[in-house]
């Protein structure tokens, strides 16, 4: 071994190469990190097209070619020196506007791989090229090149074989690289990205201009499904602007890989943001499902510190509460504005199941030609932010009052809402002449029949709708209980014997910092020495429960995500149970007026498009789709 005790007595300056390798350990974790650094550099260089080629999951080769402004000969020589950057002046660390700013990426890569750079700047008569292998730099030599930069990284980690062993295999690395490009491409629809190589097929994101550019790029990356099942976001508060698209609660995934966040155009995966997202969808999606979103947060650069993590994945906001609040309330507001809307994929999938010879669409569509996503008719998908017209709630329609004993004052021809025979109407043939066509133009149409003592079939102007009556009514009841709770506040039982919960000082601190939020959710805590907190009041709705455990879970959430919705989640869970018991059961037959009332109520109730577990409460089949089923289109 080298480190004989006598060597340790001397403090030595580390060699440059050693410093670079240590830095590389942090900056370059895997091939995808190299791709990220190189593509970011190309974006910073003002490129309009960036081509990435890989082989062997990036360990054999990564090549990034851009048409940016390139480097002059002296700049090229400097670029591979540590802490040499053209992007940051001394004053500017507080207001970083480029993706790179440390001058660390190229030297780090050069210390762990064979790096060669060829570049041409407009002011140079020809291009220059140089290489770095395991930290040893060659002198620049002339190269034939048009404007731009080509960087090749071969044999990644050849200089640090230990790192190679930790890689997850070619496939995983190949996917990780694709993911990095998706994240970068998402923020920059104006740039054309292409990725190809011996280890993958070719994917191209063509460059897009115009007001809908962002949405088109999203469709390129996430598929057109998303565009049809998302609502636009555009909210601003205290100089922070939130834009992008939030997937409908019924459009969910098993993994969180479809959540794209960027802060001032810089892709990030920050715990605070992910936590806030969970909070926003908390009560419309099962906890093991993940939403699909594309969100950019724009704020003055000095309001955010991007220099907190070697790979720049985390950021630190000066006002984290504001950012979190904006995400939670922005998404919730956008989702509730969609009211009854559920995902179209339910109806699509049904259709697909019926259609003979149907093949699932490829999971990763790579449209060669960008096209505007189809706007789902009658829905609120608004590229320009258009909204379905507000549907006034007919005064005489009160679903809640529509029990079998309700007076038949609904202006219906056949009057009797059926004290004794609520079954009659449901059994009438769909062509019964008494049907009122006036609801046809409503989004959920006019009820025609109930099938299997649960499903309502309703007719719209251009299709039909199937409603899961039990799930829908459960959701309506739940929303009503929630609304009431919001109006009346959370009743709290004070504790005769406060519960003392022992924690770490950090956890106690995090809880106390969130004390106001917790109190409005019904949990009142106070400090009990540095390491413990005392719980003084608890939400009455939760009955008697394991207080210490809840508090510890909240502390975990707060320390890892900066946010916790546990108290609300539990209260809402109790409400859901209440809702479930108070709802129309499968098996109860509804009269047509009752069915129509339910549809109208759904149209005006926020979040009624999905049940409490994120399943849709209704699906739609378009007439065109039905006709296609019969080969008539």
């Amino acid at each position, binding site marked *: 071994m080298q480190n004989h005790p006598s060597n340790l007595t001397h403090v030595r300056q580390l060699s440059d190469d050693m410093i670079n390798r240590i830095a590389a350990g942090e900056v370059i974790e895997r091939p995808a990190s190299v791709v990220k650094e190189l593509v970011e550099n190309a974006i910073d260089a003002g490129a309009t097209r960036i081509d990435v080629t890989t082989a062997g999951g990036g360990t054999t080769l990564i090549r990034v070619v851009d048409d940016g402004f390139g480097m002059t000969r002296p700049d090229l020589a400097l670029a591979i020196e540590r802490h040499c950057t053209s992007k940051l002046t001394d004053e500017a660390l507080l207001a970083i506007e480029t993706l790179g700013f440390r001058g660390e990426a190229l030297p780090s890569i050069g210390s762990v791989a064979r790096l060669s750079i060829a570049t041409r700047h407009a002011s140079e008569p020809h291009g220059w090229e140089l290489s770095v292998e395991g930290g040893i730099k060659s002198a620049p030599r002339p190269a034939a090149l048009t404007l731009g930069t080509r960087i090749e990284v071969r044999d990644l980690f050849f200089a640090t074989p230990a790192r190679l062993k930790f890689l997850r295999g070619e496939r995983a690395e190949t996917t990780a690289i694709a993911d990095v490009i998706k994240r970068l491409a998402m923020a920059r629809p104006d740039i054309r990205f292409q990725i190809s190589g011996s280890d993958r097929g070719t994917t191209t994101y063509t460059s897009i201009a115009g007001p809908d550019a962002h949405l088109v790029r999203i469709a390129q990356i996430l598929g057109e499904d998303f565009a049809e099942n998302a609502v636009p976001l555009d909210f601003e508060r205290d100089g922070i602007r939130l834009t992008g698209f939030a997937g409908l609660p019924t459009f969910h995934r098993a993994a969180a890989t479809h959540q794209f966040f960027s802060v001032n155009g810089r892709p990030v995966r920050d715990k605070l943001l992910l936590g806030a997202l969970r909070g926003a969808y908390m009560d419309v999606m099962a906890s093991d499902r993940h939403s699909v979103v594309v969100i950019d947060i724009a704020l003055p650069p000095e309001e955010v510190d991007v220099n907190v993590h070697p790979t720049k994945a985390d950021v630190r906001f000066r006002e984290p509460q504001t950012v979190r609040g904006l995400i939670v309330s922005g998404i919730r507001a956008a989702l509730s504005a969609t009211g009854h809307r559920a995902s179209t994929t339910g109806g699509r999938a049904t259709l697909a199941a019926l259609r003979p010879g149907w093949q699932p669409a490829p999971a990763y569509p790579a449209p060669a030609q960008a096209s505007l996503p189809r706007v789902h008719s009658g829905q609120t998908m608004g590229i320009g932010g258009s909204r379905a017209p507000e549907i006034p709630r007919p005064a005489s329609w009160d679903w809640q009052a529509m029990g079998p004993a309700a007076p038949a004052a609904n202006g219906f021809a056949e009057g009797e809402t059926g004290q004794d025979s609520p079954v009659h109407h449901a059994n009438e043939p769909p062509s019964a002449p008494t049907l009122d066509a006036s609801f046809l133009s409503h989004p959920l149409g006019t009820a025609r029949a109930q099938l299997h003592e649960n499903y309502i079939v309703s007719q719209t102007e251009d299709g039909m709708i199937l409603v899961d009556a039990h799930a829908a009514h459960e959701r309506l009841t739940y929303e*009503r*209980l929630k609304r009431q709770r919001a109006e009346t506040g959370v*009743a709290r*039982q*004070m504790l*005769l014997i406060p519960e003392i919960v022992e924690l770490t000082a950090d956890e106690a601190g995090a809880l106390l910092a969130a004390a106001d939020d917790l109190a409005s959710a019904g949990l009142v805590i106070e400090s009990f020495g540095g390491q413990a907190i005392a719980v003084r009041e608890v939400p*009455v*709705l939760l009955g*008697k429960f394991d207080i210490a*455990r809840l508090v510890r879970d909240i502390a975990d959430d707060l320390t890892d995500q900066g946010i916790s919705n546990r108290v609300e989640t539990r209260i809402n869970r109790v409400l859901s149970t209440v809702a479930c018991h108070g709802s129309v059961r499968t098996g109860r037959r509804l009269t047509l007026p009752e069915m129509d009332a339910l549809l109208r109520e759904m149209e005006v109730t926020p979040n009624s498009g999905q049940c409490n577990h994120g399943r849709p409460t209704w699906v739609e089949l378009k007439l065109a789709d039905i006709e296609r089923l019969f080969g008539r289109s």
Partner: protein
Amino acid sequence: MKVTVERAHLLKALNHVHRIVERRNTIPILSNVLLRAEGDDLRLKATDLDIDVAERVPAVISEPGATTVPAHMLYDIVRKLPDGSQVELATRPDGATIDLRSGRSKFSLQMLPESDFPDITAGVFTHKFDILASDLKRLVDRTQFAISTEETRYYLNGIYFHTVEVGGDLRFRAVATDGHRLAQAEFIAPHGAEGMPGVIVPRKTVGEIQKLVEDPEAQVTVELSDSKIRLSFGEVVLTSKLIDGTFPDYGRVIPQGNDKDLIVDRSEFAAAVDRVSTISSERGRAVKLTVGDGRLTLSVTNPDSGSATEELGVEYESEPLDIGFNSRYLLEIAGQLETDTAIFRLADPGSPTLIQDRGRDNALYVLMPMRV
């Protein structure tokens, strides 16, 4: 073993012991009742490993011995035998079967060896005293409702029995709390209770004690050690493990300085609370008490269904006050009070309230308000 007993005697004993046998057991022998024929008695015994109940009944023994048989099965059989019949129990030489005969009925039941039957009753009991069954029952009845069912604070899952000095008298006191309310009841400590350890008697045992008190005038012998309690109700002996934990210093949560006395007619108050809370739907909806100037207004608001108020004439001379309580808790406490007139000692809407029978200090209840 061969023994003959009166059906009535056997049934009564089985009725006492079979209750603690769990319906489902992973250890088969715990489903059984131990039968031991010895001298002039048949002894029966059952356990769930926390509680042991034993009883002896007079019997004619032609062959002493012991065995175990399924408790619920035996109980059901004996229950269905005709009144006044005799029951003969005889083990077969194969050691695996017992025959039960009564009149023309005959049953054969599988047995398990008596040597496998667990005994949790061993140990040295350091304190022993007698109390009147009705006194014991009163302590248990008054406090049992406040026992916590929440298992993390296991030390609250029972009644805390201990002695305290009050104005020169030594009292035998029972306390239970679930962290929302507290109940305390006591009487003058019997001779022999001096210096007894404070013990927490688990909820299931408390339930058995209530059922085993049949004759209120009888004496119950209490024996204690640090980890067990034994209560002898005549021929029935219950031994139970105690909860191994420290009961909180409850004295600190009993308010001393509450000076606003509200005096109500107990049954009128309870009926009014019950009526107004009809409106509430979610569990534990608050009832608001507005007091001032000789009047108490109870009100409940439920945004879902409406509201209710009721006014009662009361004695109250302090300044007006609004305070909210869980209506169920109020009703439960009102149900514990023993006299016609209840006194609420209030401080403010954020502090514990003390509730007692007027003119009696042998029981008290503390209730924490709700915030709405």
